[in-house]
């Protein structure tokens, strides 16, 4: 035994076996305790409950859902809602954040002052507090009877914002979004692929226009084919009794989450964008100026592309982090993935299985976001080993 401990390689093996073994042992102890606890409560473990009907509804869903649908479907509803909220908030946060970042590097002190104040105010207050604040503001809007009327087609009230919608089937909307994704992918492919390296920029622009036109035509066709029978195509909200009917309702919960997360995210992304611009050496911009480019051209053709490349890795982390923060929606009652899981735990009691689904879901989503964005980063980052900044 003494000799075994003196040998480095056997000591190393022992340490590794001990470390991994103790973690496995911990998991086994947890599993056994959980099993005996569950048996004491007379519950069956396993994923069989996923096929059972829930018996409770959700107040916001992108796909049709009724109380007789299964747990599997309600979890899917939650994932879709989270992705929906995440997609909108991340896009808005990026747009606002870029604007704020540009304000701060614009060289105009007054613009810089506004940008700095925005960042400092919204970055230094917890997201949860901001979401609560926006929710309180939105629900304090007037009742539907006194709602603000925007041109007679949209209404702003404390019960939500009502927008005109289209009477088309869900399938055609889904296909149209799919077509949009395909079109975007095509445009990106043309911009980056080697096959189009030698194509003239004007020709590329024509391609892009054709692609967007094609998408527009496909969407119009889809909506025409998918329109619901015996209704008008446009579907305007109108006041009936104490509330609005028809139209698309954007609930205060969703809106508060979107506003809160996109403003909070914008404060962080603004800082990242600013750091990106600062990392582009002033010589680059001066060289562009010396070549006779206008300030706008120097900005869009030289400083912006270089800054985007510089901040991409930081931005990827920020996106993953922002997506995780969409879980604060539960505090004001937005039915996201996390809220669905916690309600399911209350209703079905299948705690461990549901937590496993929650963790698995977040792992998959976050790794996918990071994977896709890392591929984008690989595609656009500066190649070669020269120091260019």
């Amino acid at each position, binding site marked *: 035994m003494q000799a075994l401990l003196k040998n480095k390689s056997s000591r190393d093996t022992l340490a590794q076996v001990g470390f991994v073994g103790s973690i496995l042992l911990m998991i086994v102890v947890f599993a056994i305790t959980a099993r005996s606890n569950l048996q004491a409560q007379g519950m069956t473990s396993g994923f069989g409950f996923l096929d059972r009907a829930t018996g409770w509804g959700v107040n916001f869903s992108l796909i049709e859902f009724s109380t007789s649908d299964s747990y599997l479907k309600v979890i899917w509803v939650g994932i879709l809602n989270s992705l929906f909220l995440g997609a909108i908030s991340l896009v808005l946060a990026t747009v606002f954040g870029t604007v704020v970042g540009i304000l701060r590097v614009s060289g105009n002190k007054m613009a810089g002052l506004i940008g700095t104040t925005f960042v400092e105010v919204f970055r*230094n207050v917890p997201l949860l507090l901001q979401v609560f604040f926006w929710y309180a503001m939105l629900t304090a809007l007037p009742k539907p009877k006194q709602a603000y009327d925007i041109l007679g087609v949209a209404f702003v009230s404390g019960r939500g914002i009502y927008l005109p919608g289209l009477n088309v089937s869900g399938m055609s909307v889904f296909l149209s979004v799919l077509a949009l994704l395909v079109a975007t992918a095509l445009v990106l492919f043309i911009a980056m692929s080697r096959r189009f390296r030698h194509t003239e920029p004007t020709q590329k622009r024509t391609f892009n226009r054709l692609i967007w036109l094609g998408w527009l035509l496909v969407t119009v066709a889809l909506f025409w084919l998918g329109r619901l029978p015996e209704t008008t195509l446009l579907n305007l909200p109108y006041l009936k009794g104490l509330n609005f009917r028809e139209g698309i309702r954007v609930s205060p919960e969703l809106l508060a989450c979107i506003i809160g997360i996109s403003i909070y995210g914008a404060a962080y992304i603004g800082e990242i964008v600013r750091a990106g611009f600062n990392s582009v050496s002033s010589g680059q911009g001066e060289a562009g100026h010396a070549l006779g480019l206008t300030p706008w051209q120097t900005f869009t053709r030289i400083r912006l592309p270089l800054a985007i490349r510089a901040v991409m890795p930081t931005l990827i982390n920020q996106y993953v982090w922002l997506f995780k923060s969409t879980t604060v929606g539960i505090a004001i009652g937005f039915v996201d993935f996390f809220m669905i899981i916690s309600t399911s735990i209350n209703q079905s009691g299948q705690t*461990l299985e549901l937590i496993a689904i929650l963790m698995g879901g977040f792992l998959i989503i976050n790794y996918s976001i990071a994977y896709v964005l890392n591929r984008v980063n690989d595609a656009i980052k500066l190649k070669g080993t020269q120091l260019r900044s």
Partner: protein
Amino acid sequence: MTKTYRAPTLWDRIRADYFSSRLNTALTLTFGAFVIWVLWNLANWGLIHAVWSAENRDLCGHGGEGACWAVIDARWRLIMFGLYPFEEQWRSAIACCALVLVGILSCVPWFWNARRISILWVAGFATFYVLMRGGVFGLTPVFEQNWGGLSLTLFIFAAVSLLGMPLAIVFALLRRSELPWIARTMGVIIDTIRSLPLLSIMFTFAIVLPFVLPGWMIGDKLYRVIVGYALFFACYQAEIIRGGMQALPAGQEEAAKALGMSYVHRIAYIVLPQAFRNALPPTINQFVITFKETSLVVIIGFFEILASGHAAFGTSEWNFAHVEVYAFVALIYFVFVFALSRYGAYLERRTAIAAR
């Protein structure tokens, strides 16, 4: 004819910053008008038309024009101390001050070595705990269920930092261990926890853990949440420390090895001090985020400052005053977080100058 150099006057500087070109002038005027408009409205609401004293509650109109700071005047004790017994609230106040003092002292470079900073934090934390909990020195005991408001927020933050920091160092060392299985297992654990939302981890520790733990390990819900949060903190902080270690030239550790230093000495005297200096700005940033995210415990059902804010306008008497209470709570968070992040920015500038 030679041009003489003239030092730029104040007016020259203003012109360069705000009116250097026609576009710049237009931007300055537009943004300036916007700033004045916002400031005017804020002053109108928050100062000129505001009601300050709780005696004039009736002046606070429902949907009136001014802010109703009367609610803060009437309920500030609830917001700051939560459900802590009224006669004992001075203890809560002193305990908070003690922790803030510890925070300020740990910004002084004299405390920046392992022994001094640990003694400072452990002593400060012990003072806080004794004052809050009572039961010794003739203080009446107050149990954790009655803690609330700012002191609970600070308690969670301090406990998480105190527990998480040593854990983070251990994680970082295991993560870069030369033994592949230890490094890989630790890597999987860190990456998994990092990709989960903090809220789901708190939720798991608060609600799920009693199912899987043997009875004697369950403990109070508050401490379970703190342990979960500390684990989350440690996983993020471990990656920050690892980043600091990676920035070290390999020669540092090799030289220590060549001198015959043991592993513990190498880590404690050569690697960690330098790694921490490299990792100081992101570490401060991590503390900032940790402080802000203590607010998430509201969702698990704790009575920290955001929840006590909710309670402050929860009665029918004050139910219209949510904006004022949120503004007050936001201000408290802002003071702490802004001070910390400014300090982080100062350190970043300092290290940048030192590195030149």
